[in-house]
C-alpha cells in the first residue's frame, strides 16, 4: 500500500458519504445500546427505506456522542443537530424534520455548554465515524500517522516528537511517555513487546472502554507507531472481559487492519511487521498494575512483583516491554500527524494536551468528556456537567477512584493538571470523576473504597492484605456508631503504614481516599464518633450497641 492508495480509500469513502444529503448518526456505544439504540437504528433504516430515501439519507452507527445519560443519542449531519432520548417511535418524525426545523421534543441544544467547553483530540472521531469501518477511520486521516512514521521518519525521530509533545501516561501515574519509549528502544533484544493496558479497573470510569468501542483503529495505529519506535513487532491489548463490546470491536478492527495491510506483515510495503493479539482480563483490579498484567498475559495469577527491574527491561516472558494506557496510545497518531510542538501548545506548562474524563455521580450531564489540561473543576462540574442534580449543594469531587482523593469545594477553581491535583492530596488517575452532593457521607465513601481495595488486594504482601482489613473494620465501626476518639489516630497510623510499606501501587495508594476525606471532612468523622450522627443521613448508626 502506498500513501496514494491510502488517501484514495479515504477519498472514496468521504465522497460516498458526502453523496448523501443527510447523515443520521446513531450512537451504538455501550451506554446507548443498553437503552436500545440498536432498535432505534433499525427503525430509522426502515423508515428511510419506507420513504424510498436510500440515496438521500444515510443511517450510520457511530461511537459515543458524549452525553451518555441522555441516550439513545442521535446526531444529524451536516446540520450538527443532536437528539436525545430517541425511541423507535421517533423515527418517522426525525425523517420528516430533515431539512426543516428540528423535532423540538428531542432537541438537545439546551446542553450546548456541554459540547462547547470541550476540546477533542482523543475523541475527535468519537460519534463521527463508524467504529467497525476502517475506511471511515482512514477518511479522517487514519493510519496517515503510521505511514509518516514508517516512510518519512526514523524511530528516533518518532520518539523525539513524542518527547517534545510532553505527553504523559494517561493510566494514572503520568509518567513521561517519551522517556518510557526511549528506555525500551535502548534495550538490545530481538524480541520486544508493546502492551496496551485496557484493564480500566477504576470502578466508575469508562474512558478507555468508550475509546475502544468508538474508535478502535486509533489505538491500534498508536500501538503500531510505538512498535516501530521501540523496535517491537508484537502487541497485546489486555482488555477487561466485562467489556464484551469493546473486545468485539477491537478484534474486528485488528482483522480489518490486517486485511488492508496496515497491521501484520510488511506494513506499507516496508520491512516492518506488527501483529496485535487481544487478551482478556478476568476481573481483578490488581491486573491493571503493569507487572501483574504481564503475569496475567502469561496465564498466571495476577500478582505484582517488585520493580525494578521495570517491564522496559524485563517484561513479558522476560523481554523488554513497553506498556501504555489506551488513551496514551490514542494520543499518538495526532501527535505524529501534527507534530509534538502542536500538542505541547495545548494544556499547562507541565501537563500537555487534553484529558478524557468519565463524568458521573450527582451531576446533570453525565458522560464522556475531553477538556484541555488546566481546565478548572468548576468549568467541568458546572459548565460541562451542567451543575448538580436538583440544584443541591456540591460537596466534593472524587478523582482517581480507589487510589485517588476527594476534592472539596474550596478548590473548585483549581486547574486540573497532574501537579495541582497532587498538591491537594488527589491524583489525576485515569480520568474517572465522581461528583458528590450533600447526600453523600464522606466516611461512608472512604469505607466504600477501602472495602474495594480490601477485596481486590492480591494478598501477596502483609501491609496491604492485613492493613486494608484493619482500616475497613475501623471505618465500619465508626459508620455504625461504635467509633472511639482514639480511632482517628489509629486510622492515621494504619494508613501511613499501608502507604509506605506495601509492595505495589494498589496498597501504596489504598489509604488515599481515607486520608483525603480525613483531611477535608474531619468534622464528619467527628460527628460520627462523638455525636453518633451521620450528617448526610447515609449511615445507619446504632450508638447503643457498644462495639469494641
Amino acid at each position: 500500500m502506498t500513501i496514494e492508495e491510502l488517501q484514495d480509500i479515504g477519498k472514496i469513502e468521504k465522497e460516498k458519504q458526502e453523496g448523501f444529503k443527510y447523515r443520521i448518526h446513531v450512537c451504538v456505544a455501550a451506554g446507548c445500546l443498553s437503552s436500545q439504540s440498536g432498535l432505534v437504528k433499525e427503525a430509522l433504516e426502515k423508515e428511510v427505506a419506507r420513504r424510498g430515501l436510500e440515496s438521500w439519507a444515510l443511517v450510520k452507527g457511530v461511537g459515543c456522542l458524549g452525553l451518555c445519560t441522555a441516550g439513545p443519542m442521535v446526531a444529524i449531519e451536516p446540520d450538527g443537530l443532536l437528539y436525545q432520548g430517541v425511541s423507535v417511535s421517533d423515527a418517522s418524525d426525525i425523517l420528516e424534520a430533515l431539512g426543516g426545523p428540528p423535532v423540538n421534543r428531542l432537541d438537545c441544544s439546551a446542553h450546548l455548554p456541554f459540547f462547547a467547553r470541550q476540546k477533542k483530540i482523543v475523541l475527535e472521531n468519537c460519534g463521527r465515524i463508524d467504529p467497525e469501518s476502517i475506511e471511515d477511520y482512514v477518511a479522517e486521516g487514519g493510519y496517515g500517522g503510521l505511514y509518516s512514521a514508517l516512510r518519512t521518519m526514523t524511530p528516533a525521530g518518532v520518539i523525539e516528537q513524542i518527547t517534545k509533545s510532553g505527553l504523559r501516561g494517561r493510566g494514572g501515574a503520568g509518567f513521561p511517555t517519551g522517556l518510557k519509549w526511549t528506555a525500551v528502544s535502548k534495550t538490545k533484544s530481538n524480541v520486544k513487546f508493546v502492551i496496551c493496558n485496557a484493564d480500566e479497573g477504576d470502578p466508575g470510569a469508562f474512558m478507555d472502554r468508550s475509546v475502544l468501542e468508538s474508535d478502535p483503529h486509533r489505538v491500534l495505529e498508536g500501538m503500531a507507531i510505538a512498535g516501530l519506535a521501540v523496535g517491537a513487532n508484537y502487541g497485546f491489548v489486555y482488555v477487561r472481559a466485562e467489556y464484551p463490546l469493546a473486545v468485539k470491536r477491537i478484534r474486528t478492527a485488528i482483522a480489518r487492519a490486517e486485511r488492508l495491510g496496515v497491521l501484520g506483515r510488511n506494513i506499507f510495503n516496508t520491512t516492518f511487521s506488527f501483529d496485535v493479539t487481544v487478551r482478556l482480563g478476568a476481573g481483578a483490579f490488581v491486573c491493571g498494575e503493569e507487572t501483574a498484567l504481564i503475569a496475567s498475559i502469561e496465564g498466571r495469577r495476577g500478582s505484582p512483583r517488585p520493580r525494578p527491574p521495570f517491564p522496559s527491561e524485563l517484561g513479558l516472558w522476560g523481554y523488554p516491554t513497553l506498556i501504555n494506557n489506551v488513551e496514551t496510545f490514542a494520543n499518538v497518531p495526532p501527535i505524529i500527524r501534527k507534530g509534538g510542538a502542536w500538542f505541547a501548545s495545548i494544556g499547562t506548562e507541565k501537563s500537555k494536551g487534553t484529558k478524557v474524563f468519565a463524568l458521573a455521580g450527582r451531576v446533570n450531564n453525565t458522560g464522556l468528556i475531553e477538556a484541555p489540561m488546566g481546565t478548572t473543576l468548576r468549568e467541568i462540574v458546572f459548565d460541562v456537567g451542567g451543575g448538580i442534580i436538583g440544584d443541591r449543594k456540591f460537596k466534593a469531587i472524587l478523582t482517581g477512584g480507589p487510589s485517588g482523593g476527594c476534592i472539596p469545594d474550596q478548590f473548585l477553581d483549581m486547574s486540573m493538571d497532574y501537579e495541582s491535583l497532587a498538591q491537594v492530596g488527589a491524583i489525576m488517575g485515569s480520568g474517572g470523576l465522581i461528583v458528590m452532593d450533600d447526600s453523600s457521607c464522606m466516611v461512608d465513601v472512604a469505607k466504600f473504597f477501602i472495602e474495594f481495595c480490601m477485596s481486590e488486594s492480591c494478598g501477596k504482601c502483609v501491609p496491604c492484605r492485613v492493613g486494608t482489613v484493619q482500616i475497613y473494620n475501623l471505618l465500619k465501626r465508626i459508620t455504625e456508631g461504635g467509633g472511639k476518639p482514639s480511632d482517628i489516630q489509629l486510622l492515621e497510623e494504619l494508613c501511613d503504614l499501608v502507604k509506605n510499606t506495601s509492595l505495589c501501587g494498589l496498597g501504596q495508594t489504598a489509604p488515599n481516599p481515607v486520608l483525603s476525606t480525613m483531611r477535608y471532612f474531619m468534622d464528619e468523622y467527628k460527628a460520627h464518633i462523638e455525636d453518633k450522627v451521620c450528617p448526610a443521613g447515609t449511615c445507619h448508626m446504632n450508638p447503643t450497641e457498644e462495639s469494641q
Partner: protein
Amino acid sequence: MDEKEVDRIKVNEDRRWRLVNRTMRLHGHQPDALIETLHAVQESFGFLDLDSLKYVAESLRLPLSLVYGVATFYHFFTLKPPGDHTCVVCLGTACYIAGSSNILKTVEEQTGIKPGETTPDRKLSLLTARCMGSCGLAPVVVFDGEVHGKMSSASVLENVGRLLNHDD
C-alpha cells in the same frame, strides 16, 4: 488424574468442547493459554467445574493446583453453576453514589439470597460487579446479560419478580 478419567471427559466431547479445544490449539497448548482457555470453558458451560479444570490442566500440562489457583484468583470465573437467570447489581462508584446498595438490599430481601448465591429452586443467581462501564445510566443492574440503567427499588423488584416467576 488417571487416563480413564481424561477419556471419559473426551468421550463426552460435544460441540461445546470444540471451542475450548480450539482455543488451546490456537495458543499452541502453551501455558499462557490458560486464562483464555478458562474463558472458553466458562463461555461454553457457564461455569468451571472440577472435571473441566482437570481436563484443561492435563491438556496444557499444568499442575491442577495452578489451574485451580488461577480459576479462583480471578473474580470473573465462577466455580458454581449459575441459576436459570442472573441478576448482577453494579456496585461501582457511580452506582454506589446513586444508591446501588439499597437496590442490592431490596433484591436480597426479595430473594432471600446473598451475592454469589442461587435461589433454592435454581431460578436466579444474584451477583455483584464493579462497574459495567455504563455509569452514565447509574444505578445499573444487568438481568441475563442485558444492561438496565437508572434502576429504582421498584423497577428492580418488578424485574426480579418476572425472572422468579418465569417457567422454563
